[in-house]
């Protein structure tokens, strides 16, 4: 695909979620596949950058304005964000500001304003890039991903959706409908920390989302995820376990660092180095624990 291929693509605009599911099911054997297009911040860039015109083209399905995929709601303790909701809408949502402020703060760090106006959480989940800020942020809330197909709806925890570097367990005829999570009580501590190549228009070298509930010197709920330090969004299981198993006063720098080092497996790439990412991973996690009252 190259930018000169653009005139050759077809695009469809499904009328309903059912129609969408039927369409992507019927087209699942299509040689070029189906490309669901929301904000275009991945697909349009990929087309422009590939430059090679060989191979069949995908069928483009415009889902950017499909009502069932959009919007934010909060009901019975559960926050639901439609997959095609833009980062700008997330940033400006009063519900998100109240219940998951980390997501609002993260939203400001996604690209720049023009990217925030187009980019979506569903798009970042669909491409399954470990560098996605939005996924690391929502991952701190231990969300479930709502998927829909002709076979019906299913819900997957993030760990089961992301199976490898830009790999996911989403079937080719499944669409990500929404992300749902049960945020901690209003006012609970949280952190968003992005170490990027610059302060805007940056892909993260390391980014971290974290939420916690602290009860009498002990952390009773702890959500933590890092971007760009592993083939998938890093859910930091060893670190979570270490923090939950210890009184805050017993959390040590050495213990915490060791747990972080077990969790992360970064690489050298165009943006940064493995060593720097390991170092920053330790540093940002320590910063969160300091915020929670640990002496690290």
């Amino acid at each position, binding site marked *: 695909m190259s930018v000169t291929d653009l005139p050759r693509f077809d695009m469809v605009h499904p009328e309903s979620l059912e129609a969408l599911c039927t369409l992507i099911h019927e087209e699942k054997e299509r040689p070029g596949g189906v490309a669901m297009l929301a904000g275009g911040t991945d697909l349009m860039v990929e087309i422009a*950058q590939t430059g090679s015109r060989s191979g069949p083209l995908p069928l483009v399905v415009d889902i950017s304005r499909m009502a069932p995929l959009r919007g934010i709601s909060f009901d019975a303790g559960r926050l639901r964000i439609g997959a095609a909701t833009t980062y700008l809408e997330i940033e400006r949502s009063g519900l998100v500001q109240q219940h998951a402020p980390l997501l609002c703060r993260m939203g400001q760090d996604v690209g720049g304003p023009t990217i925030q106006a187009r980019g979506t959480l569903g798009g970042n989940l669909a491409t399954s890039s470990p560098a996605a800020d939005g996924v690391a942020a929502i991952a701190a809330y231990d969300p479930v991903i709502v998927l829909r197909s002709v076979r019906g709806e299913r819900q997957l925890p993030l760990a089961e959706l992301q199976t490898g570097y830009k790999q996911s367990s989403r079937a080719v005829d499944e669409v990500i409908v929404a992300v749902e999570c049960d945020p901690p009580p209003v006012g609970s501590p949280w952190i968003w920390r992005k170490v990027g190549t610059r*302060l805007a228009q940056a892909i993260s070298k390391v980014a971290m989302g974290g939420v916690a509930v602290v009860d009498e010197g002990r952390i009773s709920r702890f959500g933590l995820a890092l971007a760009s330090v592993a083939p998938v969004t890093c859910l930091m299981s060893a670190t979570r376990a270490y923090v939950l198993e210890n009184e805050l006063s017993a959390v040590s720098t050495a213990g915490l660092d060791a747990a972080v080092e077990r969790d992360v497996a970064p690489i050298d790439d165009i943006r940064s180095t493995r060593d720097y990412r390991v*170092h920053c991973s330790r540093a940002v996690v320590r910063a969160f624990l300091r915020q929670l009252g640990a002496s690290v």
Partner: protein
Amino acid sequence: MDGAAKVLGTAQYVDDLSAKDGELHGATVRSAVARGRIRGIAFDEAFDWSGVTRVTAKDVPENIVQLIVDDQPVLADTVIHHVYEPIVLLACEDRAKLADACAAVTIDVEPLDAVLDIASSLAAKTVVSGEDNVQTRYLITKGAADSEDSETKIDEALAACEVVVTGEYSSHHQEQLYIETQGMLAWWDEAGVHVTGSLQCPYYVHKGFKRAFGLEGDAIHVTQAVTGGGFGGKEEYPTIIALHAALLAKKSGRHVRMIYDRTEDIQATTKRHPAACEISTGCDRDGRLRVLKMRAVFDAGAYVTLTPVVLSRGVLHAGGAYSWQDARIEGLSVTTNTPPNGAFRGFGAPQTIWAIERHLDRVARELGRDPAELKRQNLLVEGDTTATGQVLRGSVGGEECADKAFASSDYFAKRAAGPVIEGRKARGIGASLFMHGGGFTGSGERMLKGRVAVDLQAGGRLLIRSGSTDIGQGTETVFSQIAADAAGIDVSQVSFAVPSTTTVPDSGPTVASRTVMVVGAIVEQAAAAVAAQVRAAGRDDESWVDAADRLLAEHGELSVLKQYEPPSWVDWDETTYKGDAYPVYAWSCDIAEVEVDLDTFEVRVLQFWTAADVGKAINPVMCRGQLEGGALQAIGWALSEDIVWRDGHILNPRMTNYIVPTALDAPRFETILVECPYPHGPGGGAKGIGELPMDGGAPAVAAAIEHATGVSMDHLPLLPERLLLASMAGTTSQGAI
């Protein structure tokens, strides 16, 4: 002025010009190896080549890009010297078919060993140019080193000093990253060849066409379109893309437009030369600098391009803004199999100034002195001599700049208080002092003979005709102000002709901080001369407009052509590198205040003070804009901009991973204009300042990082990854870590 068109969105850059009937898009097929021999070019027979124009080296009448040395072909013929060497040109009306056509060309290359950096080029185990890969050498000697045996003598002088300090400093490629990529539109008709596009120097392109096509000058029509930034990047390269478009246009008989996409632009066009410098200095224990020994090696890339001139400016600024009793400065440029490096704002000076400024920071550390105070103590003042023996005759504003910048930033109090540490963040402050020569080096302006015409037009208007272009730096506005003031009329009565070689004289290139200071001076003279004629002819109580119109009616036309003459005292010896390297210098003191995250080594420049001696600010808003914009380019070079290489290929030829600062990354600027007028400058003494602000940003930032963290960096860029490594290696002097 042109400002209205730009904010209305109606300004026409080359990609905005309406397409002509049958116009073709042009594309370039390039090498894929860093060095090799072309065995053959195959055009896939299965591809339908109808409607596709193909050009190879054999279509070029004289296959040479006219520059200093005849080493660069317009299209590679037999040998490939870098990965992005152009080999085949294609044009087609249909973009998609053009892309397919490019994919249907196969270039068969026998790969050869390549040399990819300064160290391996100097080692010369593989020789890729000349006898030893060295292109150019310069030697500047002063005092004790003024001897056949200059190296021994300078070593002796060093040995006699109370304190001797040695260090090595290096700097890296930088991409101009003008936001408008390079582009050209070309066509041929009975008048000859026409090219219109994004460029700084219409007469460079003109010369290039004379050479490659063997045309007479009046058959070549080079016109500047509105140009979206240059910074040196559109000095010499536009000749190549213009020739390419014109070759396709000639063969196809159509209009051909070539617009590079961002990736091709970053890959193929020139960048700032990387440089490696070794410095030894000797000084008294009280900080008085005495002896400088320096060797600077510049990486030219695959061809010579403008490298000798860049290197020359580099060595001429290598001693910094300081007084040296004995000096030996050696400059070398070497060939590597990387895309040719070329002009970029600062033109060699930022590289050597980075080195000398960092070195003096090191000297200060050895002496236990504040570096800015040490530098201030040794600043050149009026009557001092530079490393080339030039006596500074006036307009020497270094001390005033330093003192104003120190005061405005509260530098000494902040330095004395030590880094401000809050949580895991440390704030520090650092300074650099520097100067930048205005105009062409040495006898350059004398040879160049830049010319400008001012025409009287109906209604008493003046038209400036000059080959100096506006590439965003404000030539049009500032020239109009200069002419209006010289003529005593309102600036709205002055127009600036579109620079076209058909209609404007050769003012010399739009480079070298020379546009306002040198060309502006003859704009002033020409406008004054026209006005004098109008006023001399004017009758009592006759208005300017009436007198002008009557004079025009009587004479048919009235135009004054002026040619630049440098001040008569300018005396430069090109062979010994002695004398007046530049008629005058602009001076500056930069101060950066940074905040460093002690965990991640992210660096933010919070505030940036510049006090710059500009001679005279003709348009203070634009003058500040130049100083601030240049400073941010310097900050970007220091902190984030980095070309990443592998086997001669650029791994990050995109704006997503060549990282220039955004509005959030940019500091608040406090810009102080110091005016020590240059008697030969226009508008009451303006000096050239276009390049000055590129020179001092990087060392000021490095000094501030050192103040904040104790980590002392000698090699650019100051990426967080490198700062982390340096901090772990313990290259720290003091501070927070």
